[in-house]
């Protein structure tokens, strides 16, 4: 499988990403079935089931809402969620463009203010006593101090916000990558997994995973393992008295909100005629109805598919 996601993404439109022209690139591969399934997953996961309608345009607002979902799900779920490749590419590109845009605007302002300084009204140390201080925030020339700059102020603020979410999102993912590094290694070697590792992780995350694991193992080896008899040097022993590989706690309780999805054939009706999803907690032999709009504390494994299908949110 030598498909470079980035190559495909490079073809995608800028702000208005048409979805399904990426499909062909994948089906030409020998590994058609599995790849398509996983791709379907990541696309439908990202776009809320809009696959197949090539005219569909994803607005920046929708994308950001989706990013917020990804961030909140990631923070609440015990497992590492699939990396939203397409979404992240679009948003990172928008950030970059916006930064350039802002720079252009502020360069303009800077020139303006330079001109003012050369005309003798400069106040560089800034004691903040500008008469034309429309925002009540002027502190000299190094500030945004007129009405025209209000959009710029908002755009800067927005940029900080979106950067924060991505930062927090990635840091959360890195933390899970570290926590489950050996487990992920195991997944990597197991081709039967639901997502190949290069879809579960971003390219950067794959590098991080590999390198961090290797320096950690080096630390373990140099300070402990190499002083041990050979039969005790393993770090991934799952057969011994204790499993050395930590897996996500699939049964961990999480808070979920059941979303309203129109015309979902998997929806049932409860005794009051309200639409709901029926799930079974096998260990307890219990059947639970999850009503649309309801909030529950549930075992993660029970509602995992609903979350992946975006029918439920972790909150």
């Amino acid at each position, binding site marked *: 499988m030598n498909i470079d996601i980035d190559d495909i993404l490079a073809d995608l439109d800028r702000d208005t990403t048409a979805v399904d022209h990426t499909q062909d690139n994948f089906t030409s591969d020998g590994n058609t079935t599995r790849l398509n399934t996983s791709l379907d997953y990541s696309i439908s996961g990202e776009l809320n089931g809009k696959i197949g309608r090539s005219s569909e345009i994803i607005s920046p607002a929708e994308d950001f809402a989706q990013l917020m979902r990804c961030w909140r799900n990631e923070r609440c779920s015990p497992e590492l969620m699939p990396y939203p490749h397409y979404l992240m590419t679009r948003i990172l590109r928008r950030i970059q463009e916006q930064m350039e845009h802002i720079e252009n605007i502020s360069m303009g302002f800077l020139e303006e203010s330079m001109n003012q300084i050369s005309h003798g009204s400069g106040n560089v140390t800034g004691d903040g006593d500008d008469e034309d201080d429309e925002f009540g925030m002027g502190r000299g020339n190094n500030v945004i101090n007129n009405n025209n700059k209000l959009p710029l102020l908002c755009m*800067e603020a927005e940029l900080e916000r979106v950067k924060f979410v991505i930062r927090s999102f990635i840091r959360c993912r890195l933390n899970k990558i570290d926590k489950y590094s050996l487990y992920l290694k195991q997944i990597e070697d197991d081709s039967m997994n639901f997502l190949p590792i290069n879809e579960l992780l971003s390219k950067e995350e794959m590098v991080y995973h590999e390198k961090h694991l290797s320096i950690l193992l080096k630390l373990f080896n140099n300070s402990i393992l190499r002083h041990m008899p050979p039969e005790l040097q393993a770090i991934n022993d799952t057969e011994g008295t204790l499993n050395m590989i930590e897996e996500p706690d699939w049964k961990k309780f999480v808070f979920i909100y059941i979303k309203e999805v129109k015309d979902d054939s998997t929806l049932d009706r409860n005794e009051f005629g309200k639409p709901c999803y029926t799930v079974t907690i096998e260990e307890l032999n219990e059947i639970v109805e999850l009503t649309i709009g309801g909030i529950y504390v549930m075992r993660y494994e029970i509602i995992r598919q609903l979350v992946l299908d975006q029918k439920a949110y972790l909150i």
Partner: protein
Amino acid sequence: MYGDLANKLVLEAKRSQQLSNKSKKGNSLPMYHEELVRNILQEVVQLSKNTEYLKEQQQLGNMDSKVWKCQQFVMLLCMERNKRCLLAYQRLRSQMLDSLAWDNNGLDILHDTLGNTQDTTDLSPQEQEYLKEYSELITELKSGALTDIDLTGSLTPPSDVFIDVRVLKDAGEIQTEYGVFNLIKDSQFFVRQSDVERLIQQGYLQKIK
């Protein structure tokens, strides 16, 4: 009894865990228990030798198989226990080192004295190497596709993008998109928070409410 030393080490680990839990900001690591670790490793070597010896005896037919099996198991379990304790201790410390590296923006804190609270001599040579390499990894990750994000930046949501700051100590000139600021003690500026985050952390600037 075998395993007692290892237990002591884990109690140490528990203590440093509690210490670092107390502050939300990553604490520095306590001293690496080099001697204790060495003694535990020695115990393992001793156990391993005993195991070899017993194996020879068994092969010579000098031992009842049940007795041999039991002795083997006891020693194996002791070795495994020691291994688990050693690894858990080292893993906990490696996690603390990770936090340290993130708090220091992936900078080489061993050679950066600015605002650094970690005493290098409290780390084992292997840990120092680990910290150096992990810091490099963070630096590497920060560039590339995620350059714009500043991965080591604040994990508190941005509240005020622009803030008033007071200069606490002279810090020379800084260049931002909004021009050059000459940071002279006691002067005040209205600046973009992200531009001066580091200077605030380092105590050069103070946010004015």
